[in-house]
């Protein structure tokens, strides 16, 4: 009941925007060349879907995001755990971490293209740059902030270092890790579109860029709507998949977006 109400409330503003958009463009107030009317957008979307163009671009964007995100996780997670456990390492890495973390991935794209070409690897690299830090910093935070009182419980049960890591540190860091992954996923999605806008031969970013050259604002808008919707769906999907993992931790859920 309340959930249905919530969904209805959230649909209110988008519906209003569409209505105003529809009315104003059909009444000739909006220049339909700059902003095509909604019905034209739907028609274009239908055509793109029917021809399979949209699916093709979406598929190649999604493939990049998941592959790049996976690599980012494989790199960021163990590094964070290692530094979290061997604290002196942080002193050696702090400057590099802080430096790279403040350079937006987009700014590196020209360099990446120079090194890796305009193929898949430069896109994947951008995604790794974007997703690495949220995963890394949140995991590190989770490992460092493990409650020493729980670790003492491990001590009084004669746990080895390995036991303490797998039975106490890791589980208590899980909510932080999933928050980091969720942020990282959002960041990589945005960074990827940026990369595809600059240099690509497929993907939603490319579709938008291509549409600009063809002066097809309708396709651009379809692209933008697809990006937003897919980003939201990916986030929801990830959240529902991981919510159970960290449901015991209410504070962790609150702290999301505080870091990075």
């Amino acid at each position, binding site marked *: 009941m309340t959930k249905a109400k919530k969904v209805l409330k959230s649909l209110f503003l988008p519906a209003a925007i569409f209505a105003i958009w529809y009315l104003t463009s059909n009444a000739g107030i909006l220049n339909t060349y700059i902003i095509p009317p909604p019905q034209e957008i739907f028609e274009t979307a239908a055509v793109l879907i029917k021809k399979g163009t949209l699916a093709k671009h979406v598929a190649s964007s999604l493939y990049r995001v998941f592959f790049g995100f996976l690599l980012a996780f494989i790199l960021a997670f163990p590094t964070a755990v290692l530094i979290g456990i061997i604290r002196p390492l942080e002193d050696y890495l702090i400057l590099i971490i802080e430096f790279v973390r403040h350079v937006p991935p987009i700014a590196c794209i020209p360099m990446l293209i120079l090194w890796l070409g305009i193929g898949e690897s430069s896109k994947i690299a951008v995604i790794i740059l974007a997703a690495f830090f949220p995963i890394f910093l949140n995991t590190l935070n989770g490992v460092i902030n493990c409650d020493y009182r*729980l670790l003492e419980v491990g001590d009084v049960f004669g746990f080895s270092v390995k036991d303490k890591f797998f039975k106490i540190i890791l589980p208590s860091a899980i909510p932080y890790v999933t928050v980091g992954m969720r942020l990282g996923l959002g960041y990589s999605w945005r960074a990827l579109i940026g990369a595809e806008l600059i240099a690509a031969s497929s993907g939603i970013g490319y579709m938008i860029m291509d549409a600009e050259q063809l002066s097809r604002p309708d396709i651009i808008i379809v692209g933008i709507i697809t990006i937003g919707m897919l980003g939201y769906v990916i986030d929801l999907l990830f959240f529902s998949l991981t919510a159970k993992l960290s449901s015991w931790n209410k504070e962790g859920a609150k702290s999301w977006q505080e870091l990075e």
Partner: protein
Amino acid sequence: MAGIRIENLAKTYYIKDRKITALSDINLEVDDNSFVTVVGRSGSGKTTLLRILCGLEEKSQGQIYYTKGEDIISKPKISMVFQEPRLMPWLTVEENIGFSLINENPKVKKRKVDLHLELLGLKAFKDAYPNQISGGMAQRVALGRTLCYDPEIILMDEPLGALDAFTRQNLQREIVNLFANRQKTVIFVTHDVDEAILLGQKVVILEKGSVKKQIPIDLPYPRSPESERFFKYRQEILRTIMGN
């Protein structure tokens, strides 16, 4: 089974350059399978003593021996129940009870966990998470977790300190029952004098980091705080703590 012999134990902390003597010149004998309670004012060093005994803290001076009859043995299995339950919030009651049994055969583990769920009356709550149970229940789980680990020596640091009077009484009774027929050596810290007499075969009074007095309690279990002799013990302990 193991007893403890503590000789000239001392512990000093340094906060900046200020020296804090938490324990000094502690001499204490805890017999095999005995239940010893430790009372003392806040800051008298009760927690520090337990933390040193179970290895959470280094001692500054002195010796700790573990004994079996007259013999000195190597450090036995020794564990601690903290003042707060310290349950793993991501594990259910059942999983928390079995937390210490990581390398145990699953079948044996299940049997032990079931036994302790039963023993502590936690069966109905076995699937609950720590944030879904009451404080008394949580402390019960913490106790069950330590019993499940089956140490020879159990240290308890005011495990009932945060509970209301009724829950406390129930758990005191349960603790008496649990340890009456178990081969365990227990050191139980409390600042509640009645609790100390109710549970202990010997009450150790700590003051400013030293043992001020040790009083054997010669009463059969279960004990009643209304009895004449209980009253006398209480008088004696209170007088010792108050210093007159």
